[in-house]
């Protein structure tokens, strides 16, 4: 009888590996609703930017999306926005303004996390219909959030820091496995979409000669459309080194992004670099809503413990302010104290130590 080979021994020892892997994957999908704090930050930040977008464009909405956008009809009628997304194409001012105000109300409800199981799909329909009126006027952020809203429909976006979370804490209804599965699939889609956006934006860039020679960043900054502050653009592009560095860091960070997510340290570096890139685009190129919406989605990649630490720090800073402390004390004096069932800490906002704790669903 011959001695078993190392490969055969390894295979025999790990006979149950596929079953164990499958079990781990299934457990990941049913045991918890992952990244719930990050999703809450994404919901609040995205909602705030969408609300800002709708309010900034309110004075001109009738021309760019309403009856005044009728000149786009020969083009938009072939874009595939079928019912219900074509509801505004022949609408008069009455229906248009009703729709616009309803969209603002839905965005506000979404941001506050109110009835998001109903509000999120309605917001997707309302926003996509509005967007479909004049797709060329949209920027990348509008495209991005339209796709993200589809994924967010699957997710429990109001598990933390929301009005829904307060209501749920009172009713104490258990979470279902099906809900957790859908939430986690939605989360995978969100993360995959973020990776696709950055990776492909980087892959397209490396094909361009101006990105290869390190001067690409100079050109939009010197254009009328994206050089919002001409003296600042002149200053930033006066020397070659910052231009080349900004160009190469942009390309490298975008292509490397999906691979940097695998380790905690590299993930943090990637997120900080991309946040810096988004801030620069927002201020220097005058695209705050595009950058804000894109950066908001990155929030799901930050751990719950980190978000709680950030919020705790912000509270300390805000409440450390004498004016804010005076307002808080005034508010406490006016409102009778409501005892928390856990003796002081809200049941919906656990501490950093419990943020990573698994909640086994029913």
């Amino acid at each position, binding site marked *: 009888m011959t001695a078993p080979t190392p490969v055969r021994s390894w295979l025999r020892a790990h006979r149950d590996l596929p079953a164990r892997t499958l079990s781990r994957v299934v457990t990941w999908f049913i045991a918890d609703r992952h990244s719930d704090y990050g999703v809450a930050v994404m919901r609040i930040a995205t909602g705030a930017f969408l609300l800002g977008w709708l309010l900034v464009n309110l004075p001109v909405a009738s021309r760019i999306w309403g009856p005044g956008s009728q000149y786009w009809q020969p083009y938009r009628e072939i874009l595939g926005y079928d019912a219900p997304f074509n509801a505004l194409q022949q609408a008069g001012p009455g229906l248009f303004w009703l729709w616009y105000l309803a969209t603002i109300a839905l965005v506000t409800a979404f941001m506050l996390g109110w009835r998001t199981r109903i509000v999120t799909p309605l917001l997707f329909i309302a926003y996509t219909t509005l967007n479909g009126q004049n797709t060329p006027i949209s920027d990348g952020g509008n495209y*991005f959030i339209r796709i993200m809203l589809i994924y967010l429909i699957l997710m429990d976006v109001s598990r933390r820091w929301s009005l829904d979370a307060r209501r749920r804490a009172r009713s104490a209804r258990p979470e279902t496995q099906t809900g957790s599965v859908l939430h986690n699939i939605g989360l995978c889609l969100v993360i995959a979409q973020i990776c696709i956006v950055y990776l492909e934006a980087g892959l397209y860039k490396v094909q361009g000669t101006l990105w290869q020679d390190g001067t690409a960043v100079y050109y939009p900054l010197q254009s009328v459309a994206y050089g919002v502050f001409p003296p600042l653009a002149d200053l930033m592009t006066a020397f070659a080194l910052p231009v080349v560095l900004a160009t190469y860091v942009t390309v490298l960070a975008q292509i490397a992004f999906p691979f940097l997510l695998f380790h905690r340290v590299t993930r943090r570096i990637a997120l900080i670099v991309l946040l810096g890139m988004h801030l620069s685009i927002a201020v220097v190129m005058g695209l705050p809503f595009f950058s804000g919406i894109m950066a908001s989605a990155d929030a799901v990649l930050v751990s719950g413990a980190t978000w709680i630490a950030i919020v705790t720090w912000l509270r300390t800073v805000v409440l450390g302010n004498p004016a804010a402390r005076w307002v808080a004390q005034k508010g406490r004096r006016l409102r009778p104290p409501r005892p928390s069932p856990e003796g002081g800490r809200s049941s919906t906002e656990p501490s950093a130590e419990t943020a990573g704790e698994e909640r086994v669903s029913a």
Partner: protein
Amino acid sequence: MASPRIRRLPAVVLATVGLLAAGHIGATLAYTGPDTPVRAALQPALNRYFLGPLDQGWNLFAPGPYSQDEYMLVRACISEPEVCAGGAAAGAEFTEWRNVTAEESEAIENNIFANRESRQSKVVHGRLWPAAHRLPDDQQAMVAANHIDGEPVFGVDLYSEEAEEIFAPGQLNDLRTYQRLEEVAVGIATLYLQQEHGDAVSLVEVRMLREAVPAFEQRHDPPEEPAQQWTEIGWRPAAEFDDDVKAAWS
């Protein structure tokens, strides 16, 4: 700790929705990624799937960054159409050229929160320019010519059987795309000019101008006159809109 057991419904949901999600992400990668043989093979199916609300593209400022200033210039004839047809010699009155993109862009300078009205004509330019430049020279000449009686720009109704006989499918598709975008350009030109001259606008003419940003090497000593490229749409009848549209632009 023992792993929680998955129930039947969540297991079915995980298998089906998980597979659909994986398929969707694979299709997104193929549809939005750079040109590859796989993408080319799947293109017709991908185009159908991503038409409408799922449409997306992530070649942001790539492969070439935005490196020119894009302008749309418009003017009108504000006499009766038959007088306009005779030109200035017949007493037709023409307005000055109006650079509507430059007017819109004033809102952008030093203001990161400018509303999107500041980019209306720029995005029309951005769509029309490549569609016009896909056409061969003789068809670009037809575009630049005047068509004031409502006769087809390319000599034939592009949705007729005759057009299908004359043009190859790809060429006909390019012509139809251009035609739609020309209608958009004439439409916004009409609305801008009617803001100023009301219903007196009978014909409109549109020009698209591109001025190159000075090359990086020339940034400290840019040329006095930037390199210019033009696309011209000859005189066309003003587009007709109902009162709701005019009210939005009044």
